[in-house]
């Protein structure tokens, strides 16, 4: 049997890289665009030019222009920053808070654990997007709100997995052995439990970045994030909605950018998960 699983992994290793390398390269490209957008487009994403409004894609304007004559390609390139900041930032924040809550729940006395688990359970009753909306309702719309809302919505899932992982690792032979050796509880938590519970969460986070990007785009599409004329992908899409009949390119290209970014992050995430299982 062991030979069998070994060979399966070997094939997975060989098959994966083509897509994974492409995905990593694309991510690298997006990250570069987020840092230095001017490297990719010389147009100003905010500069209106009434004479050049609603032009279809051409050699000059690769993704066409919008109703105010702004270059859609420039807007998409400049938008990478907003999506990546929210995607990675919200995920990181959610991961940290989730891990702290989960590890506490998983290693605390039963009473504390059951209170925390109940709270997590109640919050999990809400779909993530609705939860993010409610957070916006509390703290108001805006760029920072967007990051916080997306992050809060993701916390319960991470906390739940962190708790389950903690319980799993706590029951393992090596933690038992550490207790029998006389290793103090806190040190055992830091040295054995947290590092071993972390792996699946980091992988989950990698895939979560994509979810966060989509959620953030959705919220700003509804007008709950940055305000116009910010070149944010969800916001550009919202603009494009009004010109679907005449100028499909405004709505199509930012969507392609979101989808491609999400596919790239989750491809890398899945690859990491596959490796983590070996």
């Amino acid at each position, binding site marked *: 049997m062991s030979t069998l699983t070994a060979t399966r992994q070997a094939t997975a290793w060989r098959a994966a890289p083509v897509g994974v390398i492409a995905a990593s390269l694309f991510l690298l490209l997006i990250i570069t665009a987020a840092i230095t957008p001017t490297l990719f487009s010389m147009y100003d994403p905010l500069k209106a030019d009434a004479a050049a409004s609603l032009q279809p894609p051409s050699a000059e304007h690769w993704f066409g222009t919008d109703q105010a004559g702004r270059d859609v390609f420039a807007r998409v390139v400049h938008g990478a920053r907003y999506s990546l900041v929210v995607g990675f930032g919200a995920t990181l924040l959610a991961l940290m808070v989730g891990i702290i809550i989960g590890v506490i729940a998983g290693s605390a006395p039963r009473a504390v654990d059951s209170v925390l688990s109940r709270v997590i359970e109640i919050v999990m009753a*809400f779909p*993530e997007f609705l939860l993010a909306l409610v957070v916006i*309702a509390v703290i108001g719309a805006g760029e920072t709100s967007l990051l916080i809302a997306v992050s809060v919505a993701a916390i319960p899932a991470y906390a739940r997995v962190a708790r389950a992982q903690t319980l799993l690792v706590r029951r393992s032979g090596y933690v038992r052995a550490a207790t029998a050796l006389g290793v103090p509880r806190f040190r055992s938590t830091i040295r054995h439990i947290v590092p071993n519970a972390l792996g699946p969460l980091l992988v989950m986070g990698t895939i979560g970045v994509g979810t966060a990007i989509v959620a953030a785009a959705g919220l700003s*599409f509804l007008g709950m994030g940055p305000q116009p004329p910010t070149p944010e992908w969800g916001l550009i899409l919202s603009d494009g909605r009004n010109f679907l009949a005449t100028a499909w390119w405004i*709505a199509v290209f930012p969507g392609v950018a979101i989808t491609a970014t999400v596919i790239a992050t989750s491809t890398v995430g899945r690859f990491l998960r596959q490796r983590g299982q070996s």
Partner: protein
Amino acid sequence: MRRQAGTRTVMVRVLGRFGGMLLVVCGAATAGFIALRLIPGDPVDVMLGVNARVSESVRDQIRADWGLDQPPVVQYFAYLSQLVTGQLESYQLRQPITEVIGTQALPTLQLTSLALLFAVLLAVTGALLARGKHARSAISLLELFVVSSPTFWIGLVLLAVFAFQLGWFPVASSQGFASLVLPALTLALPIAGIISQVLRQGLDAAAAQPFATTARSRGISHSRLVLRHTLRHASGDTLTLTGYLVGSLLGGAVLVETVFARQGLGQVAVRAILGRDIPVVLGIIVLAATVFAVVNLIVDLAYERIDPRLRTAVTA
């Protein structure tokens, strides 16, 4: 004997689940109340509109009318009783929230039900078609694509192609079945992708189990193996996931209704959030929690029908 004991444990479990459900709904209502009390700003401004110029005594009168001058604990219980009796009123619309939500619930219910149906049909078709190397990679690529695309963008693309270019479906309307197809499909696609992935994993995992080898050693065909054995094993996890996704259908409805300019709860939610209409937001929270709890109760009971191991106590 055994059967009786089984029925009793099911009853006990249903009651326990019901208690858990009440707890979730109450917890959600309470959490919502606390969260929304933390909102900066005066609810009276919301009711009057920001530009209204009203004397302080009138404001006090309004506060007294709405019970906003009471201590938070009193407000909380007043709120709970209004919630239970359905008398909680919207700040903006000055109607009970049960009416606000009730009148808009039907279009959203139609949209989400049809979307769920589409999603399950698409997912099962996809998972069963994925046999052989090429079909598998094609299907999994398709899954990855729809799962990674934002719902509202799928909606915009479908609109651009099928409504504007081809003219097969109405552009924006809340009337008739034809107007429902594109929105429901939009809502269904990402969810179909997730369900299909999990169903496929479940089928593969079941086919790799020893019982599948045993079943094949009896000489049965592939289709029989799937229909009699592995599909049932895979449906357990798929069902749980589908139950969970019903919630995200509600979330997705907010976006889809905006894209297609449809009436419904999503629109109510967006207006309430942007307008800080707290009672309506609370009403939607409680509704979502209730839907979640009911759906999960149904899923749990259905799961027990599928897996006999959950029905009887383990005798090992």
